[in-house]
């Protein structure tokens, strides 16, 4: 009984701690929150720029290994972040092939790892919706005799709402990810520490209240970003689909 109360107490302390951090606008909190956003949003933009055209290409183009590529992309949705982190670490290490760039333990390294993690996810979800749209548009676009590029652009534009969902799924995976960025970023204070690695650190120190507080803020941040993107792209408004 007392143990359970102690655990509940931790949860409550976490909520109080989150509130305190937010109200006082704790300087370290603002810094790591901004870095979380910086890393993940950059990874999201780059990842989407790769994944969405790839998804469109897979929808309109018929080539030999198309099915294989789609199957592999689907499988890679479950890519273990810690393995991605390790591979990126080996590549970016000073002793590795890209060591001269000196990117290890920088936000750039974290962005690279996150891009690798989210591209298969975004591409797979986007491909799913583009494929359905393509079966509707196929005859029309063929009869209009448009180029491959025009087909892809039409699909991407007309499916933009569904693609937004694909990108937001990528954002969700990236913002909560800790295994890869811990390895390639190093969780360096004032350099590569983000919300998830800070949570891991505070858990390690046994400071559950602070860790939970940061966790609550992370969840709040994910919700805020999702709402903001919906608002900025004017979805769910004026009876539009």
């Amino acid at each position, binding site marked *: 009984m007392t143990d359970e109360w102690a655990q509940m107490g931790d949860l409550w302390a976490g909520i109080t701690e989150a509130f305190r951090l937010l109200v006082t606008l704790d300087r370290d909190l603002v810094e790591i929150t901004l870095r979380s956003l*910086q890393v993940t949003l950059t990874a999201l933009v780059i990842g989407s720029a790769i994944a969405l055209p790839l998804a469109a290409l897979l929808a309109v183009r018929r080539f030999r290994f198309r099915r294989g590529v789609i199957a592999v992309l689907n499988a890679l949705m479950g890519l273990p972040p810690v393995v991605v982190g390790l591979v990126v670490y080996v590549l970016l290490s000073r*002793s590795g092939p890209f060591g001269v760039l000196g990117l290890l*333990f920088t936000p750039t390294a974290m962005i690279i790892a996150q891009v690798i993690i989210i591209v298969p996810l975004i591409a797979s979800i986007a491909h799913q919706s583009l494929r359905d749209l393509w079966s509707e548009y196929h005859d029309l676009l063929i009869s209009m005799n448009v180029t491959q590029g025009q087909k892809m652009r039409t699909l991407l534009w007309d499916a933009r709402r569904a693609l937004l969902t694909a990108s937001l799924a990528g954002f969700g995976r990236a913002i909560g990810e800790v295994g890869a960025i811990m390895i390639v970023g190093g969780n*360096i204070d004032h350099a590569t520490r983000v919300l998830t690695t800070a949570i891991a650190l505070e*858990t*390690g120190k*046994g400071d*559950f209240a602070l860790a939970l507080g940061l966790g609550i803020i992370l969840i709040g941040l994910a919700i805020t970003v999702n709402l903001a993107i919906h608002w900025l792209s004017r979805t769910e408004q004026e009876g539009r689909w």
Partner: protein
Amino acid sequence: MRRLVFSVVLTLWGGIAAAQDMMRMAVTTSFQNSGLAGVLLPAIEADLGLEVQLVVVGTGQALKLGEAGDVDAILVHSRRAEETFVAGGFGRHRREIMYNDFVLIGPSADGAAVAAVQTAADALRKIEATQETFVSRGDDSGTHKKELALWRAAALEPESFGDWYKAVGAGMGAALNTASGLDAYILSDRASWLNFGNKGTLALLFSGDPVLFNQYAYLPVSQERHSHVKAVLASKLEGWLTSPRAAALINGYAINGERLFTFNATP
């Protein structure tokens, strides 16, 4: 409105930057979790204008990062591994800085009665004899290596232990969390233990045997293998870490009135 949001976002983007001397040092979790880093780093920044970025990992990984040239210096506590590192040409030399000590933590009920014994070897033998749950770091860290050495010094072989011996493969904090959850015995450095916030029913049961002393050493990474290593900055930092100013800060650092580290560098 949308334009305003975008411009605010863009301004925030550029906001995080640093412009001064910077070097990276791999350190053990105990150095960071003890809170000593939080005292030394600002002083280093104020005195030398040098920003030291800490990569906090176990000793095994710290040495690996040094071998790969991914950090400019390391501060760890596992003498034999450090000497191999220097002998392999990865480090310029090994310089002793300070020591703290390991302590044996366990459930307050102390089923193995280790609080009453005189030596660390006896304490471990008692735990083995009673088969009380013991959590091992199991991550090739300095603390893990120390623990293995202590078992062997007690003429016991951890490889042959049964289910009561749990190698969790985690950092000090995570391992302490596990021990707290299992009400188990665990070897910890004193600093991490004092700073640990989730003690539960655990208590410090045994300490003070000289074999539990834990020497920290500073190893600047060799520039011969990795020309990009910031050797000049690493030397500057070494000079500071062995200075009377560092001695005062290290010896003066205490938690709940308990002194954690003892400076023992020879200038």
